[in-house]
Structure formats: C-alpha cells, structure tokens
C-alpha cells in the first residue's frame, strides 16, 4: 500500500465543481497553503473546480491560501466560526456584496460536527448556542433540566490537510498548534489529501505518537518547508503573483 502522491497537481486533481471541501488550519497555523494554491492553479488552467463549499474555522487572511481561493471566485459557501480577522478583506467584500454564502457555526460545535461526521454520529446535543440566533430552527431538548441544541454531523467530499510527518500508509503527526482541525477533517472526508513536510518510512513514526492513523488518509504529498500564511501576509504576498 502506497498513498504517496508525486506532486501537488496530482493531489488536487480529483476535486470537482460543487464539492464540499474541508480545509485544515486555524488562521494560518496548519493551513495547507501549497495544496490550496495548487487548487487555484487548476482552476485558472481549467475553470474548475468552482462552486465549492469550504469548511474552515476562518475566512482567510490577505491574498494567499484560503483568501486567495475565495478571491478567485471558486467558493460558493463558507462554513466557519470566525470570518472576521485581521485582514479578511476578500471575504468581507464578497459577503457584503451577497456573492458568497456564510454558515456561521460556533467553533466547538464546528469541531464536534466534523468529528461526528468522521465518527458516524449523525446528530448530537450541545449546550452551545442555546437561546441564541445560531440555534434558530434547530431542535431543542432538555436533559436533566438543562436545554441543549441538536446539531448535525458535517462531512466532506475532500479534506485538504497539513501535517508534519507522514508515512506511505497515511499515518500522520502534526506540529504544535498546527494540529487544530486537521485530524478531525481527516476523519470526516471521503477523500483526505495531506501535505506533509516529510514523507517517512512506515515505522519511522512511533506508533504511540501517531495522531492520525492512516485509515483516515487517502493521499500524502510531500511539501518540504511549507509556507506560513503569517509570513506570506507580512511580506504582502498575493497568489497567484500578478505579472509585472
């Protein structure tokens, strides 16, 4: 079994119009910038994929990564908890112009819905959002005198994930707080594509320290020295680069 993929273009080849795409990361940490940029390259070359529904905690920053994906007009709907960030110009303008849909989900509920999707739990109850606008239309139930909102699982056609080490069986480790939503999204997508800083031999990752077991991963592509969104934005990077 070998889940390694030779290059980024191949890694994103199966992503089609209208798909639900989970993209890992919290802000820039753990964001698979190179996979996103490869998807943008494909769109610019072929016109596809478009009309994507993207699941991410945020709405991107600056003009790289998720923000660039949105800026290209590839995203029809965003499911996220916090689209208001330091420099979310791209999303804000499209949203206020009514050109992109937003499903706002409390962060813990977003995480749990994704985990539920991966764990085969179609619905669960949470105290979060009870009595608020974000619970409108959702079933409410009392348990032991406290009120809870019923939330549904969230699944995806594809997850784009950033990890640290990966082996050809798909076992993954992450780096510090870049872990965030990534292991959950691996579980919840029909096809999980992971960029790792280094592909290692099976056995090189101690079985005790595997965070995502390979069963949740369909493809692994190596991106040594991946970009950090924060660094790119401080350098005022724009993707794709505009010809001078």
């Amino acid at each position: 079994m070998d889940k390694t993929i030779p290059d980024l273009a191949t890694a994103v080849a199966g992503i089609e119009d209208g798909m639900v795409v989970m993209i890992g990361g919290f802000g820039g940490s753990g964001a698979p910038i190179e996979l996103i940029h490869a998807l943008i390259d494909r769109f610019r070359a072929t016109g596809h994929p478009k009309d994507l529904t993207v699941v991410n905690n945020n709405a991107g920053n600056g003009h790289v990564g998720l923000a660039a994906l949105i800026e290209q007009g590839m995203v029809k709907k965003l499911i996220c908890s916090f689209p208001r960030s330091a420099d979310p110009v791209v999303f804000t303008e499209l949203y206020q112009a009514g050109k992109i849909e937003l499903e706002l989900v409390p962060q813990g509920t977003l995480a749990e819905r994704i985990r539920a999707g991966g764990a085969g739990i179609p619905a669960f109850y949470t105290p979060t959002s009870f009595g608020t606008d974000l619970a409108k239309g959702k079933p409410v139930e009392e348990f032991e005198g406290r009120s809870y909102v019923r939330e549904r699982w969230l699944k995806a056609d594809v997850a784009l994930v950033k990890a640290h080490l990966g082996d050809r069986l798909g076992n993954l480790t992450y780096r510090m707080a870049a872990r965030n939503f990534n292991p959950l999204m691996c579980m919840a997508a029909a096809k999980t594509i992971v960029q790792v800083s280094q592909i290692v031999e099976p056995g090189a990752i101690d079985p005790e320290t595997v965070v995502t077991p390979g069963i949740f991963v369909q493809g692994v592509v190596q991106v040594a020295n991946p970009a950090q969104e924060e660094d790119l934005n401080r350098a005022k990077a724009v993707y794709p680069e505009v010809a001078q």
Partner: protein
Amino acid sequence: MTAKLSPTQMAWRAAQDIEDGAYVNLGIGFPEMVAKFQPPGKQAIFHTENGILGFGEAPKPGEEDWDLINAGKKAVTIKPGTAFFHHADSFAMVRGGHLDVAILGAYEVAETGDLANWSTGPKGVPAVGGAMDLVHGAKRVAVITDHVTKDGKPKLLQRCSLPLTGVGCVTRVYSSLAVIDIQDGHFVLREKLPGLGLDDLQALTGATLHVEGDIGDLNVPEL
C-alpha cells in the same frame, strides 16, 4: 473432497476476497484465522477494536506483551506503520464507515441481511462486545459460519429467531458449503462445493437460494 469446509477453510475462502490495502476487522474466534490466508501480493491492514491498526502476527509463546493484545485478548505484535489509539477513535473508524471489511461469526443470518451472533437467549450471561458496532460500520460485512447447526438445522433463514445483532447488515456469507451474497432481501448463491447438488444445498438452507448467472465451484485447498 470434503463434505464440508472446516472453519480454517472458510477463513481461507473469505481471505481470497480481501483487496490489497483493505482495512479489515476480524471478529473474535474463527474469523481471526482469515489474517493467515491473505493471498500473495495482497496486504490488508487489520484493525482491532481495542485500539490498534496494522498489527502483526502472534508473538512466539513466552514473548507475549499483555499490553499488546487484540479484541480476543490474544497477544499480537506491532509492524512498521502500526498505530495506537483510544476506544472512541477506534469506534469512530468502525461506525464512521472507514473499514472496508468486517468478518464476523454468526448464530443465524437472514435473507434480509439481519445477523444474530451475540445472544442465544435469556439463559447465560449476555455479552455483545463490538459486534453491534461492526455490523454498521464496515463497507462490507461478511459472515463465516457453518451452513447448519450441530443439530443439522439451517443457520441461513428467512428471519432470525435469536436476538439480533444488526438489521440488514450482512452482504456475504462464507458458509461451510457455499458462498452466498445477500442482495435486496434475497440469498444469491455464488459458489457451492463442487460435489453438492443445488437441491441438497437448498434443503439445508432456511430461505430460497436465488441464482444469477453461473454458480462457481467452491474450491478450497486442504489446510
């Protein structure tokens, strides 16, 4: 030739259908033997409910580590690429549909795909383990079972009489006499022992055996 397949032979036959790279959970008992019979070039990855993916064979006697056991509480080993995880993650793999194949034992199987394999009734101590989760998780749920009980009564039935493990979950049965698919509420006979007549097999089966196209010969080596 054998009048019926031994459990080992049934396990061999079940192993032939496991795709290279498949994620597989093998139930406690006979199904565990399936791992030994993987055809050359096909390497499945085995999952055990108690938190190991990609474990290896049994250790030599005396070399057991009792922190490294399978769901049947038997000692196993690690291999390159093994991963450990807790029970909630383990059953996320099961319930979340990430396993390709689960192979279980059976008391009874119905043509509806219903399975009974956890309780023989109110006597004794009931025990369910992971069976009720496994039948709803794997993409393909197969059963290894003698075709009839020790008393010669059919185990493949129109409806199960024993308490159910799952409803409409089994898709293939590897019995001691035949390989039978379950499709749209019917038993569809795929293979039978070469010396066994269709009428004889039907007489040992508690529901109608449908035939679609050729019936293959169930040829299994002596093991």
